[in-house]
């Protein structure tokens, strides 16, 4: 029966690579302004990956220019997400990085993960 639901769901976006919590990513978001469409970038750290199928989502946290933390949650299979690029991986020991909300400045940096 689950296959029937899968048949209906949107296929995975080939422009989204495998992402992990702690990764620094840039999300390219389609934005409609009246009749024209443009693409906005949202760059930050992935602090949560949630769900499966069409309900799958991930949350990106970035620090805006005024020093205020901004979090945005994207539905992974939404047509609004044009593509995602991974800038770097971060070393984490947990899957949800909510502790970053309490930290600021240098302490909010994750140790970089190097992949061979």
């Amino acid at each position, binding site marked *: *029966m689950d296959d029937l639901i899968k048949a209906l769901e949107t296929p995975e976006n080939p422009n989204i690579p495998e992402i992990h919590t702690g990764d620094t990513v840039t999300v390219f978001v389609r934005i409609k302004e009246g009749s024209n469409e443009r693409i906005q970038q949202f760059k930050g750290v992935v602090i949560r990956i949630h769900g499966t199928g*069409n309900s799958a989502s991930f949350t990106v946290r970035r620090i805006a220019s005024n020093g205020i933390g901004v979090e945005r949650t994207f539905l992974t299979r939404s047509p609004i997400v044009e593509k995602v690029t991974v800038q770097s991986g971060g070393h984490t020991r947990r899957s949800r990085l909510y502790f970053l909300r309490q930290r600021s400045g240098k302490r909010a940096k994750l140790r970089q993960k190097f992949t061979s």
Partner: protein
Amino acid sequence: MKGLIGKKVGMTQLFDDSGKAIPVTVIKAGPCYVTQVRTVEKDGYSAVQLGFEETKTQRLTGGELGHLKKNDLPPLKYLKEFRTDEEVEEGQALTVEVFAEGERVDVVGKSKGRGFAGVVKRYGFSGGPKTHGQSDRHRAPGSIGAGSTPGRVFKGKRMPGRMGNDTVTAQNLEISRIDPENNIIAVRGSVPGPKNGLVVIKEARKQ
């Protein structure tokens, strides 16, 4: 004729053209066969009887098999009547294509049984205070009426009892997707009953 019998598969969300996520219930509906046409001359009212889900021959009684054999139909597990004046032929098969995307439908199902439920769950009473020396009053119904006048509890007073397992209709649901290949209909919103529960899809009465 617009009507189908189906089974609830489960819920998910789909994206519309603007990228909005829409909650939908997936229903595996049809193919249904017209097992009998009831007419005013013969039966006093007009309706169409549909059959759904093929099963093994030994699961049906001789009478049921004979009824289906009249139109050379396979053994069908469920038979349901739909009141309609539209002309259909006996033996005809109906698929999800009788409906179109964007149309509105009513979905009838049997709600999940919740057993003997208290008044908080069954009617949404607030229950009693949780603190200030309360004992055994947390989910109590409170007063059920006045004293000597009227000297009885009014009929229809909401009290604990069997909840669920009722026939429930979800009205005016929009069809957001149809997949004829897999006999699937996705309907916006929720639908009564458990997964694998039998549901009846009809044209919406209040469009």
